[in-house]
């Protein structure tokens, strides 16, 4: 127990050090690398808080895909270093204000009610009816399925917003994920070797997510990573943003949810209600298009607005 606490204290100090470094360092490139490290440390904290599902999501999306997005952005911005606002008293007042916020939240943390309120017994009691063993999956896809549906809509809306920032002449064109040109590089070898394994891992994570840590988002991030790898290595082409198949894939996750939701009216009598005997089958059925749709959305969000028209 004592050893575990020492590890936790060390982890907390390390994560605060990295966060402080991100704020203090001049080079924005260094800050972005620091942020990737911060995300990975945060996922270790999630493991220590016994939230393995969150640890996987944080490592994959919070650190991995966000890191890729920020690095891609850096390569497109002209100025790299951070120019500090020169006004010292402004920084002092801002620091005081932020310290006050931290202190207020810390006081709330220390004074959290005892015993802690929890919905775990309710979540556990409903599991037999849902047919899955992982309570987090049950919350995401059954108890609070409406939240997850809206989140799919948010992802698509963010992409619509992103695409609409394209210049008029580029609308419907192809986004550029990364400029990489070395036909004999080691990256190409990796892009040929890793995807079969990655896709298998994604399918496993999706399937095992019903009963163990894992699930649709983690599988999506894995698929997205594999797709980006093959595109960056030049083995696959980035699809045009006016490609019908791409657009259909992007909305398929939210659409599957919506269809299932309205089917609930007919079968059980309310929106997004599952018939008890088929609940697990329906959850897995909606998770498959959702995983593919989220993976495609993640790749397109990292790639950004369309930049050029194809030669064809």
């Amino acid at each position, binding site marked *: 127990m004592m050893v575990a*606490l020492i590890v*936790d204290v060390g982890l907390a100090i390390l*994560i*605060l050090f990295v*966060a*402080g470094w*991100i*704020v203090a360092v001049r080079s*924005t490139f260094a800050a972005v690398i620091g*942020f990737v490290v*911060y995300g990975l440390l*945060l996922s270790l*904290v999630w493991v*220590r*808080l*016994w*939230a393995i599902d*969150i640890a996987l999501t944080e490592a994959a*999306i*919070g650190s991995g895909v*966000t890191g890729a*997005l*920020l690095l891609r*952005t850096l390569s497109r*911005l002209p*100025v790299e270093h951070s*120019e*500090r*606002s020169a006004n010292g008293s402004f*920084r002092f007042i*801002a*620091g005081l*204000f*932020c310290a006050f*916020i931290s202190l207020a939240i*810390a006081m709330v*943390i*220390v004074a*959290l009610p005892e015993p802690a309120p*929890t919905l*775990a017994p309710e*979540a*556990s*009691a409903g599991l037999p009816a849902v047919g899955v063993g992982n*309570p987090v999956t049950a*919350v*995401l896809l059954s*108890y*609070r399925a409406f939240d997850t549906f809206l*989140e799919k809509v948010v992802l698509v809306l*963010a*992409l619509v*917003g992103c695409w609409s*920032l394209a*210049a008029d002449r580029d609308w419907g064109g192809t986004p550029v994920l990364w400029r990489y040109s070395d036909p004999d590089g080691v990256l190409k070898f990796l892009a040929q070797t890793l995807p079969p394994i990655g896709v298998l891992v994604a399918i496993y994570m999706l399937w095992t997510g019903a009963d163990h840590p894992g699930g649709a*988002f983690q599988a999506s991030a894995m698929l997205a990573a594999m797709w980006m790898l093959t595109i960056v290595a030049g083995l696959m082409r980035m699809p045009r943003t006016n490609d019908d198949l791409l657009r259909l894939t992007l909305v398929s996750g939210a659409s599957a949810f919506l269809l299932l939701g309205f089917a609930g009216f007919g079968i059980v009598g309310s929106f997004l209600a599952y018939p008890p005997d088929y609940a697990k089958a329906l959850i897995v059925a909606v998770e498959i298009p959702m995983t593919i749709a*989220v993976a495609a959305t*993640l790749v397109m969000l990292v790639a*950004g*607005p369309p930049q050029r028209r194809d030669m064809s």
Partner: protein
Amino acid sequence: MTSATLFGLCGAILIGLGLFELITDPHPLRKILGFNLLGGGVFLVLGVVARRGAAAGYLGDPVPQALVITGIVVAFSATALAVALVVRLSEVSGRVSLAYASSEQTDSDGAEG
């Protein structure tokens, strides 16, 4: 002090650090980094609430845990949109800063970002 409280306090400090970066750095990409630092702290506080709610044989309350997973994905969406705006800003205006243009040349007017 339990591990949950320790990481809760850690989350509180991360919120302050992220907020400071968000307010004081005029570089928009650094503001986005600050926003994500802050988000990590908020998620951590929520995760501590989940850990303290361990019951019914689980080591954490699954409801706030699921909220954090949704939150991470939504934070990524917001980050991607914000980043696209920054890239567009630099394409249109040729500069990447949210500080007033005058503050770089003249320090006397006291303008700050």
